[in-house]
């Protein structure tokens, strides 16, 4: 069956299999930042923004995304400028192996879009579906705080 979806502002018309997941579809369409860590919604490495909300793309049937708008980590940059979230992750040393990073950035974007001034508990809750084995989450939480500051400064 054929579906259309917009990924990082680019429109795609793609032939898909009804049993395909959004994760597989995105990766075979070239969006390699979307990672497979478990395939069962437990690790969050596959998180993408689907119509404005972060979801585990490994649990979304690709057919469900017909007509949807999707953002992946590749789409956070604008005209060669890093998104404040990406800047913050870099500056705070929140990236080690980087495999969980795209999913973390998407979860952070969802969090800060809907809650621009989260408390530390709310940040932890916001990242709770993204597992990381390298960092212990310490610097990632700092990165989200820093990103929130940057985004609020930019907004005002």
């Amino acid at each position, binding site marked *: 069956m054929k579906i259309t979806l917009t990924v990082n502002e680019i429109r795609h018309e793609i032939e898909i299999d009804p049993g395909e997941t959004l994760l597989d579809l995105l990766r075979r369409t070239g969006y390699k930042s979307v990672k497979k860590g478990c395939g069962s919604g437990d690790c*969050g490495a596959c998180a993408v923004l689907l119509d404005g909300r972060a979801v585990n793309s490994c649990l979304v049937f690709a057919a469900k995304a017909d007509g949807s708008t999707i953002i992946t980590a590749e789409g956070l940059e604008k005209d060669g400028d890093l998104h404040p979230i990406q800047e913050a992750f870099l500056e705070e040393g929140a990236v080690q192996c980087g495999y969980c990073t795209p999913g973390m950035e998407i979860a952070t974007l969802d969090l800060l879009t809907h809650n621009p001034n989260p408390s530390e508990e709310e940040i932890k809750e916001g990242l709770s579906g993204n597992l990381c084995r390298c960092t212990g989450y310490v610097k990632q939480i700092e990165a989200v705080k820093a990103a929130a500051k940057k985004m609020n400064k930019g907004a005002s």
Partner: protein
Amino acid sequence: MIRTQLKTYHCPDDLKEALTLLQQGGKTARVIGGGIDLALHLPPDVTALIDLSRLPLSSIEASSDGITIGATATMTEVLEHPAIASYLNGVIVTTLLQVASPLLRNLATIGGTLVSTHPWSDVIPLFLALGAEVTLVGEMSERIPLSDLYDSRERLKGKILTVVHLPKPAAGTAAAFRQFSRTGFDVALLNCACFVRVENGRCIETRIIVGGTPRLASSLPKAEESLIGAALTEEAIERTARIAQESSSVGDDRRASAGYRRELVYVGVKRSLSEIKDQLEEAKR
């Protein structure tokens, strides 16, 4: 990975079409909201999915009768709705924040969650404790208590759950939820939801539901009865929690032993009832 057995993915335009597809498909067709459970495990005989998420079934509305929640509202949408936030002191919000992760809550629907019958479900015991009702639409439309849904597997056959109804809380009611899990992003080793209505200083309505035992949530009638007519004191709470502990049916699984679960029943019921007691005292002031 492609599940090659799936041949068709329907996005029906209205409920009637969805029902027709469901009836035609029989065992080979399944209705989905977010689709999480079927993405995780597609039974071998399922060849068609009927996606309800585009139907106008997701609205959440408050009225004099209580709150109605459309079946395809996501957990996040429920969580963020102002009517839900103020319902019984925010017990639904505090519970939902402990469910799964934000990523999963953005995808999971309330309808899908209630029909999933996961034994560790946090939502089911809470909604049972709140006295929720659901509308099932098949050949006819019927509104039944949520607990009836779990009486048998056949209850939902050929029907679609479309609306969840939360009753308007009477004066003097409070509810609380407790769950015990290994890590923050984990299912419950055991959970419990309690609901109490007090009038003239005495409990006149109680619901004590325990889940993850490891079986699906069910009520503890002996414990519920022990509070009826009594004042909600520390002693009454202690007694009720002990009755709950003794009368609950718990078992072993790889996450916890029956003996440990029995301990958690006691602690969970005690702490929920204590919280209810505090809330009611707070409300009086």
